[in-house]
Structures are given as structure tokens and as C-alpha cells.
């Protein structure tokens, strides 16, 4: 089997996302699924070759030999992926997707459907099915029931069925011939502590087609006049696929330990939910007209933070629990030898002030859009504001979760100001004691004074990374959106220019802070969300033409199927870090919305 030899790492941007809003798979342009955790995003990988090496399993369905030019796309306004290869004997197309809507039908909660079809003549294809589970790549117990291949571990079972007499053996390559007019459909189902639900290929294919129609309906509600609408729609679909439907939790990315520098150790587990991301997602979904999704994120925030309030946890599991301790999988070779591979995330123990600002801003946006905040929601928000009022004078870890030590990050202080400002505004329409409101207002004013005195460098005309620092930070690009200062002011414009100048990673890319200034070994790539924040900042401060050009350039950097990782190598333009990244896609959506709003204002 080809899987037994070591292969060159597939570029991260070569992967496409398949998902059902409960878990997700990454499939490369050879038709190999190299990442799939079951039964949830944060579950154990059953195909883990992406970071676990050949022993971690994969599931390939594609041409048997080298194939010519590949065309790849999602079917318009759906999450169904089409990959076409040109071979010497004909064209081979793989159409695949995961069924998202299984409620009310006897369908398994994880249902992956893959169909190979040929045109122009019979095409030699191959299926490689090698499921392994978890940290130790455990092989399954295998048995057959007619056309069904059942692979079991103690609590989990995976079944493969297809409409072909070919007998698939786990771990062995099985040759197939696909003839025109006779497609081959493979169905993968998963059962977690429940009986397997057998779905025949025709039923599974029909379920996938119904799902496509639902996604098309979902996309039809999106503003037709948005700039770069196709890219925005792909980003919204990706954000939705990365939202865990049973709890409404947004997952930062479906992967762990895709490296921020190839061969380096900056490898983190992103299969968790950050309240900050949820809040940014609220704004993105609201702006795009997806009200239900915005409300669902707020509902998750309320439910998930319940045990910690008024403290806002940095990150949580899909069901609002604290992640288990971070550990390293020492036997895993990592993506492109980037080790260690980590599971769990130690950032959960940090104190980050900025999260409160994002959350209160999201509540304010919801309220401003006509969504009444329930009393409980308001009580939670008021508790967060109290916490900010009490703790803003303390140093924090900052938005970038630097593990070295805490500092007085200017961006964190600005977001704390935002939290208090939004609390004061919300209090105008929600029952609040006068003394409480006055305290928020006083602390907000004190914060402004503190930031402008200690966080601004008058000589360089820019806000700084932290108090007394000579550096800038790309997180400061949120400044024009806050209402902290007029977007056109010299201080705001000076900050935008300083960030563009000092954190330039080669247009249109930006580093998030001066490279290497984070106490970690090695370097990292340009941070993609920051470039989208720059678009927003320019658009909101009257520099619309610059913003438009920048967004044009950024949209051109997407992967071939329209996805973005967290970072990008400034030199090679290869995507880096966990993928696809919800924060980057939220940034793209908000950048497009800012362009739309700025253009409307100019008219």
C-alpha cells in the first residue's frame, strides 16, 4: 500500500474541509482523508496521517496512478466537494461530503459519502482504507457483514460499505475500475456507544443531495451585493461547519498541531472554543444577516461560561468544560516533522482581559440589532463588566496568549475600555443600579486616561504593544471600530501606519507582533486575521480604496477551494498553522462587511 512509505508532506492549503457541524475531515487533492476525529471535533482521530504519520491512518479514494491536472471546487453554495483528475484513459471525479442534517431520520450522526465517477473511458482507481484510533494508532477488530466492513474498538465502531463487489481490507490498497455510467459510492458511518446504523449507498447519496439543497437555501439568505460574495459565502459556510451544532460552540479549527513554522515547535491544539471567537462570530453572522447563528453563539457563551462567571475563561471544550491538561504525543512525527504534537491547551489557565470586551461588544451588537437580551444575559454581562472594572489595572497574557509572562497590553486595555463602554450603553436599556453604572463609567474614563498616558508613544505617533514598549501590535488594528477615538484622528491613523510599516511581512501580509518577540524558539508566519483587520481599519477610517485593493490581494491568497489557515509563510506563501481557521474566516467576512458599509456611507 502506498501508505506504508513515507511521503512528502502535503501543503496545508492542498486540503479541503468536509464537515457535518459535529466533526470534520480534511481531504487532500489525491482524494486522501488524512484527518477525521470521531465522534466530535475534539474526539480521537480515526484518520490522523496529517500529523501522526503513516501509522495514524487515512482513507484514500482516487486515481490509481499519477493523474494529470486537478480541478477542485465546492459545488456552489454547498459543502460538497468535487475533485476531478485527468488520466490517460479518461476523467475521474470524486464527489464527497458529510451529511449535516440527520435529525428526524434513522441516519448515523457521522455519515461520510464519497462517489467516484468516470467520463471518457474506464479509469483505474484505488481505495485505501486504514482506520486507526487515538494516540497509539490502535488497529480495529475487523469483521464483515455482507457488503459491510465493520471496524470496532471498545466504544467506537466505523463501518464502510460500497456498491461494488470489491473486498476492501483495512491497511491494503484495493484496485478498482470505474466505468462511465457506473459510479462507485462509498459510505462511512460511525457509531459511538450506540448501534451502527447501516446506510446503503443510494440512501446515503440521497441524504447528501438533500443536504446540498439545505445549504443552498442557507446561502440564499446572504446579502447578494456583498463585495467578494463568493469568498464571504465560503467563509460563512466554513464558520458554520466549524460550529458544533449540539451545543452551538464555535471551534477555532478542526486540527491540532499544524505548525506555525515548518519543522518548529509552535504547534497547538485548536479543537476548542474561545469566547472571543464566538463573540467575533456573532458580529460576522449578524452583519451577514444570519441572525439565528449569531444568537446561538451568544446562547453558547452564556451556557458555557456559567460555572466560571464572572470570570471569562480563555477557552472551553465544546460542552463548556475546561480542557484537559496539555500533553505531548511524543511518538507522533508531526506535520513536516514539526514536533511536538500537542493535545489539550495550556492557554486555558491564562488571564486575558480582552475577551470581556469582545463578549460585551457582541451583546451590544445583538441588542442594537433588535434582539432583546434576556435578564439572565444582562446579569452575566453586568458581572463581566464588574470584573473588568475590578481587574483592568492588572497585567494580562494578551490576545496572543504569550506564555512567557504578563504585561500591560495596550490592546487588552482598549478591549477592557470597550467592555465598560458597552456595559454603560447597554445599561441605558436594562435595569441597573445607578451606583453600578456610575462605577463602570468612572472606570471607563480612568482606563482611557491610563491608555492615552501610558500606551501611546507621542514621538512616533502610535499606540504601542504594551505600556512603555517600543513595539507595535497588529491587534491595535481594531482601534477604529471601538469608538475609543475618532477613526480619522492622527493617533489612530498613526497607529495604522506604524503597524503597516513595522509589522509588514510583504504585502498584503502582516506579522501580529515583531517576529520572535514571544519567548518561544523559532519564528512564525504572518498572521492572516491581522491583514483582514487592516482592511476593516482602513475602510472604517475613510481609506476605502486602499481597503478594497488590500482585500482583493487577500482573497487571492486563499487555498484553491477558498480556505485559510491561521498564518502564512511570507516567503513561500504557504499556509501555516491550524486549518481552516475560524478567526481568519471571521476576519474575511467582517472585512467585506466593512467595505460594504463604508461604500454605503460614501454614497
Amino acid at each position, binding site marked *: 500500500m502506498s501508505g506504508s512509505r513515507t511521503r512528502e508532506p502535503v501543503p496545508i492549503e492542498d486540503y479541503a474541509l468536509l464537515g*457535518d*457541524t*459535529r466533526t470534520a475531515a480534511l481531504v487532500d487533492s489525491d482524494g486522501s482523508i488524512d484527518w477525521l476525529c470521531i*465522534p466530535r471535533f475534539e474526539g480521537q482521530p480515526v484518520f490522523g496521517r496529517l500529523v501522526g504519520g503513516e501509522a495514524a491512518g487515512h482513507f484514500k479514494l482516487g486515481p490509481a496512478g499519477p493523474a494529470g491536472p486537478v480541478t477542485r471546487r465546492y459545488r456552489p453554495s454547498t459543502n460538497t466537494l468535487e475533485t476531478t483528475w485527468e488520466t490517460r484513459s479518461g476523467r475521474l471525479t470524486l464527489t464527497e461530503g458529510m451529511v*449535516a*442534517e*440527520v*435529525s428526524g431520520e434513522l441516519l448515523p*450522526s457521522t455519515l461520510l459519502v464519497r462517489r467516484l465517477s468516470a467520463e471518457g473511458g474506464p479509469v483505474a482507481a484505488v481505495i485505501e482504507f486504514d482506520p486507526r484510533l487515538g494516540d497509539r494508532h490502535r488497529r480495529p477488530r475487523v469483521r464483515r457483514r455482507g457488503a459491510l466492513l465493520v471496524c470496532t474498538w471498545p466504544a467506537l465502531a466505523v463501518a464502510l460499505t460500497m456498491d461494488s463487489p470489491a473486498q476492501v481490507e483495512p491497511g491494503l490498497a484495493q484496485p478498482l475500475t470505474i466505468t462511465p455510467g457506473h459510479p462507485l459510492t462509498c459510505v462511512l458511518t460511525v457509531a459511538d*456507544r450506540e448501534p451502527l446504523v447501516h446506510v446503503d449507498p443510494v440512501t446515503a447519496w440521497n441524504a447528501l443531495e438533500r443536504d446540498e439543497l*439545505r*445549504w443552498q437555501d*442557507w446561502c440564499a439568505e446572504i446579502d447578494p451585493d456583498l463585495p467578494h460574495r463568493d469568498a464571504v459565502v465560503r467563509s460563512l459556510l466554513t464558520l*458554520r461547519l466549524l460550529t458544533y*451544532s*449540539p*451545543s*452551538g460552540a464555535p471551534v477555532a479549527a478542526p486540527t491540532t498541531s499544524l505548525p506555525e513554522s515548518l519543522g518548529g515547535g509552535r504547534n497547538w491544539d485548536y479543537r476548542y472554543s474561545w469566547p472571543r471567537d464566538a463573540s467575533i462570530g456573532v458580529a460576522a453572522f449578524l452583519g451577514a444577516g444570519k441572525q*439565528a447563528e449569531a*444568537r*446561538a453563539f451568544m*446562547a*453558547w457563551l452564556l*451556557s458555557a461560561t*456559567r*460555572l*466560571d462567571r464572572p470570570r471569562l475563561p480563555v477557552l472551553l471544550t465544546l*460542552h*463548556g*468544560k475546561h480542557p484537559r491538561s496539555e500533553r505531548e504525543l511524543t511518538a507522533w512525527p508531526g506535520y513536516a516533522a514539526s514536533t511536538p504534537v500537542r493535545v489539550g491547551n495550556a492557554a486555558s489557565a491564562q488571564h486575558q482581559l480582552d475577551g470581556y470586551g469582545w463578549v460585551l461588544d457582541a451583546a451590544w451588537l445583538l441588542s442594537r440589532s433588535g434582539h432583546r437580551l*434576556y*435578564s*439572565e*444575559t444582562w446579569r452575566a454581562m453586568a458581572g463581566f463588566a464588574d470584573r473588568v472594572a475590578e481587574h483592568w489595572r492588572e497585567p494580562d497574557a494578551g490576545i496572543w496568549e504569550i506564555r512567557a509572562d504578563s504585561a500591560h497590553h495596550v490592546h487588552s486595555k482598549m478591549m477592557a475600555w470597550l467592555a465598560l463602554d458597552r456595559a454603560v450603553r447597554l445599561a441605558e436599556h436594562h435595569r441597573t443600579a445607578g451606583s453600578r453604572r456610575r462605577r463602570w463609567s468612572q472606570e471607563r474614563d480612568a482606563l482611557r486616561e491610563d491608555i492615552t498616558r501610558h500606551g501611546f508613544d507621542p514621538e512616533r505617533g502610535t499606540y504601542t504593544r504594551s505600556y512603555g514598549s517600543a513595539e507595535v501590535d497588529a491587534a491595535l488594528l481594531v482601534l477604529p471600530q471601538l469608538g475609543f477615538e475618532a477613526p480619522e484622528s492622527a493617533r489612530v491613523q498613526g497607529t495604522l501606519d506604524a503597524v503597516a510599516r513595522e509589522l509588514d511581512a510583504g504585502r498584503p501580509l502582516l506579522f501580529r507582533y515583531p517576529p520572535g518577540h514571544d519567548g518561544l524558539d523559532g519564528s512564525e508566519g504572518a498572521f492572516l486575521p491581522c491583514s483582514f483587520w487592516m482592511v476593516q481599519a482602513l475602510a472604517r477610517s475613510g481609506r476605502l480604496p486602499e481597503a478594497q485593493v488590500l482585500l482583493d490581494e487577500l482573497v487571492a491568497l486563499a487555498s484553491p477551494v477558498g480556505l485559510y489557515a491561521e498564518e502564512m509563510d511570507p516567503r513561500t506563501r504557504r499556509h501555516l498553522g491550524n486549518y481552516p481557521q475560524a478567526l481568519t474566516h471571521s476576519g474575511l467576512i467582517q472585512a467585506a462587511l466593512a467595505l460594504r458599509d463604508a461604500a454605503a456611507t460614501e454614497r
Partner: protein
Amino acid sequence: MDWAGWSLFGLLATVGLTALMISAQLGGLSRLDLPLILGTVVTPDPDRARAAGFLIHLAVGQCFALGYAGCFVLLGQATWWIGGLLGALHGAVALTVILPMLVGVHPRMASHRAGPQSVAVLEPPGLIGLNYGAQTPLVTIAAHVAYGIALGALLEIS
């Protein structure tokens, strides 16, 4: 059958159970909120739901108290420790049978199979309520044992 005892002590024991569960929530032990879960069957507003859910829980508790009283009659005695044993059994049934079944009948509770069209906002309880926090099974069992002990002891005295 002590009908007067059942009606009064069932009410007291249910109020006690609810108070214990709410205390556990406030103490950061569990996110299992029985009044909210029961009340959101009739309204989406969390505050109204809690009020409605509390009344529903009182009614449900009274029904369970009837079962306890029946057991005491069958056994010929009501003691605190029999009540505690029944409470442990009751808690185990609540975690393994009643909570998981809610997913199928509650209009605002999602299931682990929920998809993009789901409008349910309450997360599913998961295996023995673990989605609501790691301490949820312990808190639930303890609260139901206290409920059983209270019923057994009060009916023993009466």
C-alpha cells in the same frame, strides 16, 4: 398510606432537592439547572422558565414522593436509610434514563445528532449529565439521596 405526610413532606423534600441543586450550581459544581430545563419546555425566556420549571419540578417531585411512600408501605417501614437507598436509585435512574430521554421530547434541547437546522438552544446532557460538568453525576446522586433521606425520616417521625 400517610396521605397528609406524603403531600407535605413530598413538597418539603422536593424544595430541599431543588435548593441543593441550585446551591451546587452557584458553587460552580454543575451547570445542570433542573428548573431551567423543565421550564424551557413552556417558554424560551430563562427567567420565566425557571419560575415555571420550579413549579413543574414541585409537581414531578410530588409524583416521585408517591412512589417513595408506596415503597415504604410495601416494606412496612419508613426509615431515613431506606429513603437514602431509594434516593440513590432515583438519582441513578434520573441520570441514566430520565435525562437522556429528555433529549427526545424536549422542544428546546439539542441532541448529539443536532445539525445546522436545529433551533434547540439547550445543550444535551450527554452521558450521565457529564456535559453539564464533571461533578454533575455526584451532585445529582447526592441531592436525590438527601431527598430520599428527608422523605424517609419525615415519614418515619410522622
